[in-house]
């Protein structure tokens, strides 16, 4: 009898201290029946990749409000790959200017969500990505 759950790491890289969004998403994913590992504030890309490895997650959700997404996202994607976790899907929530979105997607970010995104949408996308 196999009991497979979607495991998601919710992490906040960088130095901004606003984690309400991350907590809202963590709670929504929990209520959607997923197992959410929450790491807290001010994580380095190395810490995030290491946690993703140890927890063998299917998805990493990054909350970035600092504007540093173009530096942080590729670094994290890179580290995941180095660790052999190419299959992990990475989502970003936060303040991401429209012009950055295509480049982030190109790098391999699966989904990007700004203010006003609905949690239902995020849950649906996460489920789809993991299928």
């Amino acid at each position, binding site marked *: 009898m196999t009991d497979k759950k979607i495991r998601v790491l919710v992490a906040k890289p960088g130095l901004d201290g606003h984690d309400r969004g991350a907590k809202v998403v963590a709670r929504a994913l929990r209520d*959607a*029946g997923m*197992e959410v590992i929450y*790491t807290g504030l001010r994580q380095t890309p190395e810490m995030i990749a290491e946690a993703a490895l140890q*927890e*063998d997650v299917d998805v990493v959700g990054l909350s970035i409000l600092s504007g540093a997404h173009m530096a942080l996202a590729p670094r994290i994607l890179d580290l995941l790959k180095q660790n052999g976790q190419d299959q992990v899907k990475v989502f970003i929530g936060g303040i991401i200017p429209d012009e950055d979105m295509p480049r982030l997607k190109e790098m391999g970010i699966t989904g990007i969500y700004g203010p006003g995104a609905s949690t239902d949408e995020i849950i649906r996308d996460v489920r789809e990505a993991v299928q």
Partner: protein
Amino acid sequence: MALERHVISSFLEMSLTKSILEGNRLALARLLTQVENDSPEGREALTELFPHTGKAHLIGVTGAPGTGKSSLVNQLALHYRKNTNKKVAIVAVDPTSPFTGGAVLGDRVRMRDLSGDQGVFIRSMASRGSLGGIARKTASVVQVFDAAGYEIIIIETVGAGQSEVDVARLAHTTVVVEAPGLGDEIQAIKAGILEIADVLVINKADRPGVENTERALRSTLELAHPTKRVFRHHGKNMAVSAPAIDSDIWIPSVIKTVATEGKGIDELVAAIANHAAHLRQSGDWAARDRARLGSEMELLLREALLDRFLNNIPQTEYAEIMEKVLNRNISPYDAVKFLLNGK
């Protein structure tokens, strides 16, 4: 086709266990998922790894929510890494929602000091419906870490109330964490979780009320464990005959800590080491091992028998009998008798 798939998967599995024994962390993480999900691959790997288990010291850490279990585990792991070259694994259990099956696992938040150290592996687990403070598969996850060469394995339970005592069955040494301010509840908890403590920690010992908490805990322990008393009489110490102390009986130590500042951790580690030495000396180490493996075997046997039984009776018959019970025609006892004996 089916056979082919089996051959391929068992081949992959063999290399998975081999990589784990060689220290591959990704393979380890993947197998932990398989084991947690109780997949056939996971079971097979557990079987292959089992001969390599039995070397680790399993330390359970339990206590009410908010007493500082995660911070304490963080400090313990730091201490072991600084002062020994043993690898440390942490299995941190948090509760699963009974309604949605989801969980938020937040113990890593307090363990950020440990990141960047390849000799530490932290794994969060959701309780997935188990009520004993750990998950059903925690014991198996611990076995994998044991086989992978983690000599210190710390198991942190969900925030425990009174009866979440399963960790004591799993661990060699059980640390129960208290904090000042919960003193009023001491009376309520002493019958439950305090009983399983091999080491009692009063964390947040810089808070007011710590003396009261300590006094309450010590007096509870004295009631349970008669200690040698020395009465003063006419200015002279006089030994009054107290019940003889059996050296095989372990008397829990009480340690005060401030986990966030790393205070009292040396003492705590020493108390844990003393307990381990006591277990080995008294033969209790082997006894606990026997009890743990015995209950694991029994549980597996029970599951296997139930599966086999349910597979051998027609679904419709089961449903029919269930219906009779629902209508109060027969009792659940009668239903079981009927299912087993056919009448």
